[in-house]
């Protein structure tokens, strides 16, 4: 006959299997910090394109003379996104190797799909609206859609991602009520929040 210890061991192994099989645990916290820094760097460049020599916190009209700047901004955004995804992938690959699992497993596939649907639909909507001249929509919508993607994706990875998502949604909504201050909110959401999130994750799980 089995002893209590054996039953408890069985239950513990069930719990661990269920959790590990649905969660992508290789997501690197360090990559959060690094992409936050890229975003802050990108924001700084955007600031020099748009605001200089005015202060970042002064109100600015976003209606006039944007076409020349839009292509530059788009370039900055794509470079920041590419660098973030690249280092995120590279660092997660390293973490996966350390944990002895493969990076491309059912949990990460689920996470990828969960993130892709809100991000792609949000991204396309933003591009369409920018083409039509609604520049003010960009920063708040980026934050809201990114937040929705994180909330959706959080079921396949760490629970902290859910809180990051909710914060991004909140920031996006507040940002929408302050037209002209998009860059400040964008830098907070994509820069500062990623650094805070990455640091929390790094100290909680990776040290």
């Amino acid at each position: 006959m089995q002893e209590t210890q054996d039953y408890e061991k069985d239950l513990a192994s069930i719990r661990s299997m269920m959790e590990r099989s649905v969660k992508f645990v290789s997501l690197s916290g360090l990559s959060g910090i690094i992409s936050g820094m890229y975003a802050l760097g990108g924001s700084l460049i955007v600031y020099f394109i748009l605001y200089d020599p005015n202060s970042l916190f002064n109100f600015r009209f976003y209606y006039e003379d944007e076409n020349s700047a839009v292509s530059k901004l788009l370039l900055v955004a794509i470079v920041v996104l590419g660098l973030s995804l690249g280092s995120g992938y590279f660092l997660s690959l390293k973490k996966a190797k350390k944990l002895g699992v493969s990076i491309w497993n059912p949990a990460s596939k689920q996470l990828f799909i969960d993130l892709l649907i809100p991000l792609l639909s949000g991204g396309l909507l933003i591009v369409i609206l920018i083409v039509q001249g609604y520049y003010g929509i960009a920063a708040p919508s980026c934050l809201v859609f990114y937040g929705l993607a994180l909330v959706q994706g959080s079921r396949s990875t760490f629970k902290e991602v859910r809180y990051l998502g909710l914060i991004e949604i909140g920031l996006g909504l507040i940002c929408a009520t302050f037209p002209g201050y998009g860059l400040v909110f964008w830098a907070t959401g994509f820069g500062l929040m990623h650094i805070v999130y990455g640091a929390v994750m790094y100290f909680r799980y990776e040290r």
Partner: protein
Amino acid sequence: MKNPFELLDKILAHSVRLQIMSVLVANDSYDFNSLKEIIGVTDGNLATHIKALEREKYISVFKSFVDRKPNTKYKATDRGRLVFKKHLDGLEQLIKQQRK
């Protein structure tokens, strides 16, 4: 109260089979290689236990090809889920009883 030993399932008494069922109950489907990796067993060992579960109709097998390589996916059947849940209840009750 019902005897908790009656809830326990003989097939699931083996830890590898219990782990396979845990993964399949928590996920829609899982493929062979991912199962092998997460449970940490050899090909042959996993295949044996999968066959045992398949024979009892606790899991169903879906074979397909991805890039011309065979890709086999497994799903827990309704019967499998029910047995798994009962087994879990049984374990829980036994632990509670023995703690008293």
